[in-house]
């Protein structure tokens, strides 16, 4: 625990602690305001009709905020020095080697996926998905006021993507990944000699289908099994469309928008499923899942 306190109080980790506090505070703020609005027939924001000029009434507040921020930065610089580490040495890399804090979520994904997927495909999907939001969000409600009732789907999906898959993974990567990228709970000491159990198996092996044949080539049966599982998972999108295509919402959304939304949503869920497949079996005394689908070109 002592070591955990030391880690969270390190100058380099202050942004992450601030992030944690900030995310909790603002989530709480939005949630209480949304709750209040949801209980009313008309949102509080809609009843305010007093409008003021930006100049000088907003700008003067912004000016004050600027001064406050500068004062904080100056004092920060007095108390905390730049957190420099040892000189770079390719023959002797630090253990654990960690990315900048804002990328630690992505680095954490490397535990569950191959570099090509964790480092290229998933970040690309995140950026593309964020860019697509204005085009796939057809719900006009919730403009200019806090609400949950009117935007349940978008808020839940965003909260899941941002808080669970981004912030939580950053916090995990910063505070709970120690030497050898091993997982340590806050009260455990980061032991460089820690020995972890390494017994990952592929999903197909649960059913007795070996991924590799005795001559070390891929087993086509395992490959087909993986393809069926992954494609079957992504088939949930089209099936749901066929089932619900005549509802008002689906009609309004249209096939293209639906395809994009469902693909992004399933990808997002897929990441979580893979994380659970890796972590949960250990707790149940089973072997963690390494890959669901192994092919000569990529592994998922």
């Amino acid at each position: 625990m002592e070591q955990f306190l030391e880690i969270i109080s390190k100058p380099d980790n202050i942004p992450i602690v601030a992030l944690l506090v900030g995310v909790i505070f603002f989530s709480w703020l939005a949630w209480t305001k949304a709750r209040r609005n949801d209980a009313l027939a008309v949102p509080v924001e809609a009843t305010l009709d007093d409008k003021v000029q930006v100049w000088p009434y907003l700008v003067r507040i912004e000016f004050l905020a600027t001064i406050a921020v500068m004062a904080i930065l100056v004092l920060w610089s007095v108390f905390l020095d730049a957190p420099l580490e040892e000189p770079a040495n390719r023959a002797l890399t630090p253990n654990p080697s960690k990315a900048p804090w804002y990328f630690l979520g992505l680095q954490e994904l490397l535990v569950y996926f191959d570099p090509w997927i964790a480092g290229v495909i998933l970040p690309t999907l995140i950026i593309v998905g964020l860019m697509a939001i204005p085009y796939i969000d057809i719900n006009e409600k919730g403009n200019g006021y806090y609400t949950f009732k009117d935007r349940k789907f978008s808020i839940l999906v965003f909260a899941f993507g941002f808080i669970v898959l981004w912030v939580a993974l950053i916090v995990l990567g910063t505070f709970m990944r120690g030497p050898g990228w091993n997982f340590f709970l806050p009260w455990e000491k980061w032991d460089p000699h820690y020995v972890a159990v390494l017994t990952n198996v592929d999903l197909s092996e649960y059913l007795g289908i070996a991924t590799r044949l005795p001559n070390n080539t891929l087993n086509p049966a395992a490959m087909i099994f993986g393809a069926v599982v992954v494609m079957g998972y992504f088939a949930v999108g089209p099936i749901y469309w066929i089932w619900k295509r005549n509802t008002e919402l689906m009609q309004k959304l249209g096939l293209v928008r639906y395809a994009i939304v469902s693909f992004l949503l399933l990808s997002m869920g897929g990441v979580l499923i893979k994380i659970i497949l890796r972590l949960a079996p250990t707790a149940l005394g089973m072997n963690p899942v390494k890959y669901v689908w192994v092919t000569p070109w990529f592994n998922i």
Partner: protein
Amino acid sequence: MFEQRAGIPVEQRSYGKFYIAFSAILFLGTVWAVWDEVTVRRPWKEYQESYYAVLHERLDSLKRAAIEEIDSTDIVFYENALREAETRLRTNEYLQALEKKTALLSELDIATREWRFARSRSDAAYYQYQKTSLSGADAAAEKAEVERHDARIAEYAAQMADIEAQIAVFDTTVNKHQDALLKATADLRGLYVTADSYNLKLERASRAPRDIKQVMLADFEYTPFTEIKARIDRCQTCHLGWGEDVMEDAPQPFAKHPLPELLAVHNPETFGCTPCHRGQGPALTEGFAHGFEDHYWETPILKGVETYATCNTCHSEETVLKHAKPFTKAKQLVLESGCYGCHEIKGYTDPPKIGPVLNSLTSKTTPEWIYRWVGNPKEYNPHTRMPNFAFGETDAEAITAYLVKIGRETDYSPQRPRGSFAGGSASRGKELFEAVGCQACHVAGGYTSIRDERGTSYDVAPELTRVGSKVNADWLFDWLKNPRHFNPTTRMPSLRLTDDEARNLVAYLVTLKDERNLPRVTLDLGNPEKIARGDALIREYGCAGCHEIKGMEREGKVSVNLSDFGRKKVEQMDFGNTKPLGKTADFDYQENADGTVSVKHTWAGWVYGKLKNSRLYITDRIAQKMPIFSFTEEEITLMRAFLLSMTREVALPTYQHDFTKRIKDLEAGRRLSVHYNCIQCHTLEDRGGFMSVKYEDPGLGPPPLPESQGAKVQEQWLHSFLRNPSTVRPWLKLRMPTFQFSDQEIGSIQKYFLAMSNQDFGIRDYPATPVEAKYVSPGRKLFDLYQCAKCHPSGAADLSELSASDLAPDLSLAASRLKPEWIVEWIIDPQKLQPGTRMPSFFYEGIAPDEETLGGNVREQAKALSTHIWNLGKRNR
């Protein structure tokens, strides 16, 4: 308050208080930041202030002491003299002369000015004349003008000379008085010379700028990315007094450096401090500069003997470092302990194996002895160099089986018929053992003074206290007569024993029995399975790293490469089942009451534990094969400093000590001198000479070998002496052994001696050295006058009158042994060539007692003496 405020329309709210509060915080924060930057983060300013205060105080008190030391009567005397000189300036004689001189000087001024003007006019007139004559017109008028001016020049010049002559007359008088005053002033000032020198230092100290003192080595080392990196070093910003004599006992950080002679060749003003001491050069606060507060600084400051580890940054090829005695000792320990037998170590690529040959053992000793020895050698001989591999009974038996097998396969047999050893006298053998020099390397009969003087945890040759129960007498006789017959690469020399002497020694040594009552063991040695197991064990444990063993000639080094061990991270070290010691403990290792061991979980702690007990970190899963040495505390610390020096990071070639031919020669010789243990008896480059403790009278012990040895003896003589030592000092019972050196080894030793004396190897015809006739008869006369023969007796003289240390070699040997130039230098100043020698200097302070012969010239007289000595030898030749 805020609710009330929320009621006010935004346009009417006042933000003045916020503005004032935030601005005040920003302003005060900025002031704080500036103050923090210039004072809190620059403690060196305070250090400099207090340094100069201490320096001022010390210099001032020294100055006052210097003034107090002046004899007050001297002051009165010189002050009176000064006053008297001043009164002389008021006499009429002086004043009148001065007045007249002054008047004449102003006259001279006027004359000089007129003379200069005349010259200027003449130059101008000459210009006009030349211009006119070149234009072809008549220039007679101009020429006349020039001549007129030239006449005036001559006139004024004469006038000036006249005035100067008059001045000179008065000058004598004026100068006489003025000089007296100057002299009196200087005399008085002369009393204050010391005080004035302190004054000068005080003034310099008061003017010294308060600034960061930085040394930059633009091209000292490489970054991990092999780019040249500058080293910035600001240690002297606080450590200001490193070279200041008066700061000798000052508190840190102001103290003077304890090794000024080392700094003379590593000047901190140009070389900085961190190349030796490490630490974070650019940092300016103690914790960061020393590197302890900065967790990420990889090279914190080194303390104590560990500081010497950095010598290897530039001197990794040398095993003797003049100003780093502890590190020299560390390197010798590594060489003598044979670490390189199992580990690859930079700078120790191919030294000879330190252990004996293990073939033919059956002719030397019994299988039972081998078995016990393999099981734990320290049990038989606690001071053996052989470490304890702690083999269990089965493994020891297997190894014995293999050794016995190869012992029976080899075809050694003593040169003499069995039983030739018989008939010696043990008491005479004991006498011989003590006199002839065996004790230099071997301990026997409880005499341990030489071992204690050496101070290492191991002996360089086996202790013989129990040898009678170990070796076979036939083998021993053969071994003593000629050790190389049994083992062609042994370091054991031959002492040129006669058969009788050897018999006596054997008779003595076989009386040294093992008094322990050991149970008999039955060994199953013929079992091929056991032999195969022994073979595997010998290979696995790397016995061939130190021993030559039949069938193991191609074995490699069994353990890790240590060449970058000094940079190993503590995370890469396994501490086994040891408990961690607190980081603040000032020791690294502790044996607990419950039998467990605690070590500090640091690099230093790990190494300490490993060297203390190499099997310390053994666990159920991790086997450890390194044998257990029994190093002393001091040896462990030294070896650890050596290991700390093992890094791949070295300084750029410009800073490396050139590995010149001379240094190569020195190194080869140093290694040989450790290998053959020359340093056990002889002091070489300040190493060794342990045997001298045995002799109260140093004249009876082995002679020292000063650095001038190479310049002293003739190459041919040294060669034949090393090959087959001849008697130089007949009164010694101690013998220089015959080491049976190879020609190459003799060459190495010769080059080593020559390199120490800064001479090159060359072949000279010494007998053909010319003798100058003019020195012959003065030489003979001086030889008798200075009574050389008193201590240097010739062959047949009676030696009983003098003590051994007053005796000196027969001078008739000199012509075939010594270099003629050396004899001259030796006679002039023996102490310079060999500090502490009993040879007296006849020329005290460079003055010859005989002032007549050869004009009393010291060098000439020395040449004459050397000529005579040379002739003495020639007659003998």
